């Protein structure tokens, strides 16, 4: 096979706000043959997107290519003048962005944007480009391919937009397509369709690809070769099979280990049926104008029951928009429920948090997905952790300071971090602080809303381990909300599956492998496995997909 891409000793420099220059890509070599799909895998900040973008001669603002060559089909993208690079973008090398929803211009129709490449480069007359786009829509199995182009980006779903973004990349007949985490923002059930569509189009066109991702299981389905990156350097590279079977580098092993089911001791089901810590009965909640029956216009949660035993964990799983976060917010009282009962520790709770007692508030805490937005960026860590200590326990001065140290210690963070601001911490550290703030209240129940979703696999694994340890030490219960089955499986005694605001199935650890409800079956079957043949062999009942599938 002939080489299409030949990157030698690539270096990229970033200028920090303070004007300091740091090297973020430190001498990377990479080859891609014609028609080959290579995955760049690594945690956030490992430089995978930066490397992929240099293939188009592009660096994000503040960065520049400071050394090395990036040969694409014999032309050095690092050295070409901007005008010549622009002439190659979209024709030779095309890009599929991480969030198609943000990468489509909201004020133009989809068709105009899909065929824009052909207009810029004058490669096709307008009518021909439209026909070609419609062919691509069909190939990517988009619904109503003849008319979807006339819509605006906000009128189609996320999974469809992601495929439309692929059509936008493929229309210029590129030799190389860069996929920048194209399925990260999608639900697993939608992800399957998108992955299948990408794979078949790439294979049938013999197009080479760079697939940037942090998800090894997704990459295993689509890539011929995997390059593992960390800190701007290549750690390991090899055929997909080889990397998965015999990872040589410790970091690769760590990534793979995150997929191993961990043997953990789960608390035995209580012999005697004690009163559950939390009981939720027929809760209805939602958004919009209250109707004449006292219920909101849009019901995000439709009559859900659940209970959490003391010292045990309940997982809530479902696709985005299924009402799992709304349920959590209603239990916590942030979004008052419209009907039903919430009984905590034997006492009925008021729907609204502001009418609950101080102790009721203290005993139930909620931790949000994005630590970045949940932590006040203007306050140092000690202030962030100190506030709930003063609010709930009236701690001041020395006592408060000692407790802040203890909390940092509990979440395995060094005490020296207490004077820092959130912006000076890594993603995993911020999420630990976010969790420590909930611990400051001495709660009995912590509602964790997607707290590992924004973290890299390895970091997320460590946070889950921490949660388990703390549970043993502090006798906590968790409600663990996630769209990621493997995370929920790792920590929960019981799992509840939600679909369109309703609880469709309740599973215990014993029957988690064999769900009965058709939606649970589809959801569980859609979680990618490390096995590279998984996607090709996957047969989902068409009836199930039609009824519950995404898009």
């Amino acid at each position, binding site marked *: 096979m002939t080489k299409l891409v030949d990157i030698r000793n690539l270096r990229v420099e970033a200028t920090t706000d303070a004007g300091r220059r740091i090297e973020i890509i430190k001498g990377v070599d990479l080859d891609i043959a014609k028609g080959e799909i290579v995955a760049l895998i690594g945690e956030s900040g490992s430089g995978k997107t930066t490397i992929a973008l240099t293939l188009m001669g*592009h660096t994000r603002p503040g960065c520049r290519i400071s050394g090395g060559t990036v040969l694409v089909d014999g032309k050095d993208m690092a050295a070409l003048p901007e005008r010549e690079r622009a002439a190659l*973008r979209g024709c030779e090398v095309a890009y599929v*962005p991480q969030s198609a929803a943000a*990468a489509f*211009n*909201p004020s133009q129709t989809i068709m105009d944007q899909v065929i*824009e490449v052909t207009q*810029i480069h004058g490669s096709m007359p307008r009518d021909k480009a439209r026909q070609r786009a419609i062919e691509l829509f069909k190939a990517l199995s988009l619904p109503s391919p003849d008319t979807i182009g006339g819509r605006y980006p906000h009128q189609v779903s996320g999974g469809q937009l992601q495929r439309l973004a692929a059509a936008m990349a493929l229309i210029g007949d590129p030799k190389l397509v860069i996929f920048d985490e194209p399925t990260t923002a999608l639900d697993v059930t939608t992800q399957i369709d998108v992955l299948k569509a990408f794979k078949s189009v790439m294979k049938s066109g013999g197009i080479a690809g760079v697939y940037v991702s942090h998800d090894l299981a997704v990459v295993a389905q689509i890539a011929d070769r995997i390059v593992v990156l960390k800190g701007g350097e290549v750690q390991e590279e090899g055929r997909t099979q080889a990397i998965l079977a015999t990872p040589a580098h410790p970091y690769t092993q760590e990534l793979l280990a995150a997929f191993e089911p961990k043997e953990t001791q789960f608390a035995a089901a209580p012999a005697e049926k004690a009163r559950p810590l939390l009981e939720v009965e027929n809760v209805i909640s939602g958004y919009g104008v209250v109707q004449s029956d006292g219920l909101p216009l849009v019901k995000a949660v439709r009559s859900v029951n659940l209970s959490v035993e003391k010292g045990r964990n309940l997982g809530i799983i479902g696709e985005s928009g299924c009402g799992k976060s709304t349920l959590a917010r209603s239990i916590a009282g942030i979004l008052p429920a419209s009907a039903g009962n919430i009984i905590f520790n034997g006492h009925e709770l008021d729907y609204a948090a502001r009418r609950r007692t101080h102790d009721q508030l203290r005993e139930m805490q909620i931790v949000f997905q994005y630590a970045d937005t949940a932590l006040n960026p203007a306050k140092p860590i000690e202030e962030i952790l100190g506030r709930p200590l003063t609010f709930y326990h009236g701690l001041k001065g020395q006592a408060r300071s000692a407790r802040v140290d203890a909390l940092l210690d509990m979440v395995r963070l060094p005490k020296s971090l207490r004077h820092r601001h959130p912006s000076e911490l890594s993603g995993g550290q911020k999420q630990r602080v976010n969790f420590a703030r909930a611990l400051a209240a001495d709660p009995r129940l912590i509602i964790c809303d997607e707290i590992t979703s924004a973290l890299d696999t390895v970091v997320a694994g460590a946070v889950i381990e921490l949660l388990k340890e703390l549970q043993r030490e502090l006798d906590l219960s968790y409600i663990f909300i996630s769209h990621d089955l493997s995370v929920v499986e790792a920590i929960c005694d019981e799992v509840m599956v939600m679909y369109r605001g309703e609880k469709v199935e309740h599973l215990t650890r014993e029957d988690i492998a064999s769900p009965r409800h058709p939606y649970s079956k589809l959801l569980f079957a859609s979680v990618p496995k490390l096995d590279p043949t998984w996607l090709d062999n996957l047969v989902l009942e068409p009836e199930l997909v039609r009824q519950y599938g995404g898009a």
Partner: protein
Amino acid sequence: MNADIASMIGKRLGLSALTLLIVSFAVFVATNLLPGDTATILLGQAATPEAVAGLRQAMHLDDPAVFRFLRWLAGAVTGDFGTSYANNMPIATLIAGRFVNTMELAGLTAVIAVPLALTLGITAAVLRGTLYDRIVAVLTIGVISVPEFVVASTAVLLFAVYLKWLPAISFVNEVHSLTDLLRMYAMPVVTLTFVVSAQIIRMTRAAVIETLSMPYVEMALLKGASRSRIVLRHALPNSLGPIVNALALSLSYLIGGVIIIETIFNYPGIAKLMVDAVATRDLPLIQTCALIFCLGYLILITIADIIAILSNPRLR
């Protein structure tokens, strides 16, 4: 879809009408709070109490304020704005000529200031961080910081007093040729352009920079689009909302806020008429002027809102 837009725009227009009503009432109340009695002022200090009482009676000044407001409102709706207290002329005639003058000055300024400011704002955003951007930033901040009367007085001093190129004050009646017209308008228009452009430049620059950082702009770059295509096709349509609002705010200043310029250059516009009316307690005239300013402002803001709605497919 179209019915939705129509109802949205209809609602917007209804709100404008309501605002106008509230403002006219507020203006009525405020003018009634002005110290001094119209009849006394009109008749002078030496007037006998009987004469004052008679005049008050004739002018309905003794009626309750609400009646006077309603009477005035009923007249205004039918186009009769009443009669000036000070010189007994119909308000409409009094204002008509002045209104044309004001619109001429405002229109001329807008024609020059808007394209200039938009060009400077957009180019500064595209060339962000360059020397050009910094020069534009320093100049706009400088213009914002210097009060307009300083700009105007300096211009008069320089061009009229020392260089003697331009007339210091504007006499609309003495305009006989295009050169005269240009000479008369040069200084007021340039001064107003200074004042109005600075805000537009800054707002436009900010709005365009905001959209230039959007992922779809990077996407356009990665499609191979040229810089002008990126700005004109992808960034500008999405920053239109904030830009037209900034334009509307700045231009509304040209209708009512130009009193200083009109005074310095002795330009016979509405703002000057209103200030003179305050001096003579000419309530109907004050009210009508205030109403015109409010109407101008509302029209501009409503147009801006409608453009913003039409330019956004999510609202459309």
